[in-house]
């Protein structure tokens, strides 16, 4: 438990501005809402601009492997901004989770080319696991035959629709290996999702040829690490979601009048917003701590991830729910963007493990065992 730096550097502030400007220019609530009606035209150009023009896809990849050599801290700043705009891009699934899997592959091996492609923003990958899988959860592997053909399926996979390559955990006698499969060779069935800004899909392989990128059991460690890093950094996205909800609600309530008074001037509303502010600021500190601990490989990283996941997941949902409620009727309409944040917040709460699951994990990490079962 070292004294991690929780402030933002100037470089991070600049990064934030460029992401914010780009997303503001290329994505707006109405086009994001159109995703729910099946119009996904906003996704590709936005992702190309973020991955390619801004070069953010390779943030986590070391320079010698073609990336920007940044750390989890910078990635967290990007995720804050993407959360604040519910941006429908596969940054989290490809540039965080899938990339972390691949970074475990030995340099000079089969993964190099793919990593370089990811770093350049030319390729997009997804890890074929349910989005709800959290750190420490059992990872069901696909089956592989002697010819390297993969069979199996996974439900509610995030990022698969945007990916051109799928990273498939494969169960072998030696443990879990990771194979790659061209997305075009897989059945990727879009699912009507709670959060259409991160639409999930069901992925099925039926004897599809795959290439082993990481052997067993190292592949299992790589996947576990990716879930750990993913869980840590998703909290920054949740903080971004929560912040948007809080600031948008405050702005609305400073303007909205009922009974001749600004609604934000009613004390019960003020006190709720004060409590929400305290929660959101705390979520920011927790997310920042988890990112810093992850970046520095701190011994405290696992604990801080479980803490931040438990806290930020619920704060994002709370902030989105309060946004809907305190906007009154307008917050219940399709036209107002609040619902986009509510759906993202609720899906994020389930993603990478529920808060209760993270607390159960925390209990082991900090030696607070569950009571012995009765009887």
């Amino acid at each position, binding site marked *: 438990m070292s004294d991690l730096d929780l402030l933002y550097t100037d470089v991070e502030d600049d990064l934030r501005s460029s992401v914010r400007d780009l997303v503001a220019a290329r994505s707006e609530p109405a086009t994001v809402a159109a995703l729910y009606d099946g119009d996904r035209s906003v996704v590709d150009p936005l992702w190309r601009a973020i991955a390619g023009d801004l070069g953010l896809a390779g943030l986590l990849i070391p320079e010698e492997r073609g990336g920007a050599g940044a750390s989890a801290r910078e990635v967290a700043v990007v995720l804050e901004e993407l959360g604040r705009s519910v941006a429908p891009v596969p940054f989290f699934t490809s540039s965080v989770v899938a990339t972390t899997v691949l970074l475990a592959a030995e340099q000079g091996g089969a993964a190099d080319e793919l990593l370089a492609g990811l770093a350049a923003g030319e390729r997009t990958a997804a890890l074929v696991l349910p989005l709800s899988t959290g750190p420490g959860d059992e990872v069901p592997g696909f089956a592989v035959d002697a010819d390297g053909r993969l069979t199996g399926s996974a439900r509610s996979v995030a990022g698969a629709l945007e990916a051109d390559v799928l990273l498939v955990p494969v169960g072998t006698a030696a443990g879990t290996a990771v194979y790659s499969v061209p997305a075009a060779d897989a059945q990727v069935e879009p*699912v*009507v999702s*709670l959060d259409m800004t991160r639409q999930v899909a069901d992925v099925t392989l039926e004897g599809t040829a795959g290439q082993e990128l990481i052997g067993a059991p190292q592949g299992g460690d790589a996947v576990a690490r990716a879930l750990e890093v993913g869980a840590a950094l998703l909290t920054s996205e949740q903080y971004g979601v929560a912040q948007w909800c809080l600031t948008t609600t405050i702005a609305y309530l400073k303007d909205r009048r*009922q*009974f001749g008074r600004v609604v934000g001037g009613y004390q019960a509303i003020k006190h709720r917003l004060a409590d929400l502010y305290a929660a959101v600021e705390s979520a920011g500190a927790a997310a920042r701590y988890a990112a810093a601990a992850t970046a520095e490989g701190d011994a405290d990283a696992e604990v801080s991830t479980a803490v931040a996941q438990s806290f930020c997941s619920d704060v994002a949902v709370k902030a989105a729910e309060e946004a809907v409620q305190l906007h009154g*009727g307008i917050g219940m309409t*399709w036209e107002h963007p609040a619902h986009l944040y509510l759906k993202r917040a609720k899906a994020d*709460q389930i993603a990478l493990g529920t808060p*209760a699951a993270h607390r159960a994990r925390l209990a082991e990490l900090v030696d607070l065992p569950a009571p012995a079962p009765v009887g």
Partner: protein
Amino acid sequence: MTTTDARTVGEDLRQRVADFLAEHDHTTMDRLEFLRARFDAGLAWVNFPEGHGGLGLPRALQGQVDAQFAAAGAPDNNPRGNGIGLGMAAPTILAFGTEEQKKKFLRPLWTGERVWCQLFSEPGAGSDLAAVSTRAVREGGDWVVNGQKVWTSSAHKAQMAILVARTNPEVPKHAGLSYFLCNMDAPGVDVRPLRQITGEAEFNEVFLTDVHIPDSQRLGDEGQGWKVATATLNNERVAIGGGAGGRESGMVGVLAKSWREHPERRGVGQHDKLLRLWVDNEVARMTGQRLRQKLAAGEPGPEGSAMKLTFARIAQEASGMELELLGEDGLRAGDWTMKRPQHVDFTGRDAVYRYLRAKGNSIEGGTSEILRNVIAERVLGLPSEPRVDTGIAWKDLPR
């Protein structure tokens, strides 16, 4: 009325229904003619006066009449299809209408020939209903109405509406309103679906552009609109407070069923929360049971508003928890297609729908914030909020 009297009255009424059924064979008679005849016989709503579909009897006897007709297999007036008409428009028309208005509107309302909707809320007048800015200007024998209404359920199915509009902006806001009965097929009435966060459109926006309403369809005096509207809304509150299910009703029932039937969904650390919600739901059932007993004993309790708060909270927490328990399945929704639902089933459809729809429970029919004000002020006797709009002409209020 003593218990003995009540029993006699009930028996007389039972005989009267039996006589009616003997004289009117619903298996051969036109459905609408049958319903009209039932209305004319005073068996529509027995607590209404004679001549207006009733017999001036206690409201409590209505259940017996309905049950008797249902047992005979007679057609009903599809009350679910005209909730606002029956629950809100009818008692208001009865209380404030002229004899002519009652004659004209009550029978087709009850039979379902005319479905009603409610044009009250506006984008700028939600909780603060008295702030409506829809204007009605007198032109000869008509009122010409312009404005926008919102959150209107059934507007796309309705033939009639109860409408609150501002007839005088020069006086303080509560004093400048009037109440109208508006034909929904009148020129200038434009009904547009209002899509909700569930994807579907239960409600509508209604744009009113130079809509003409004859002065004969003004309900109550000019400027008396607030008083009439308040009566309407009190009827709404009675309707909302009334319903209450049995054990494991509502969203907690859905959650408990899911927990029992799917051991794999049982989340570590979520057992106690489930039980808390179960307890809260059961206590709400007990509270509702006591409320109904008090009402029946002639001791109306103020718990109705409090119960709506409780139901909304439980529904929201339980449906939110259900999604967490579902895990990977909680990430999957049913359908986002824009549709017009036939009816609203809070506990039906998929878990994502339930979660999102429940968010409306603390907004529609009085927000939880307004209900807390109501409890604090009317039940606990605490001071009302400082008002800054008292005595100021509506046109001069900041907006």
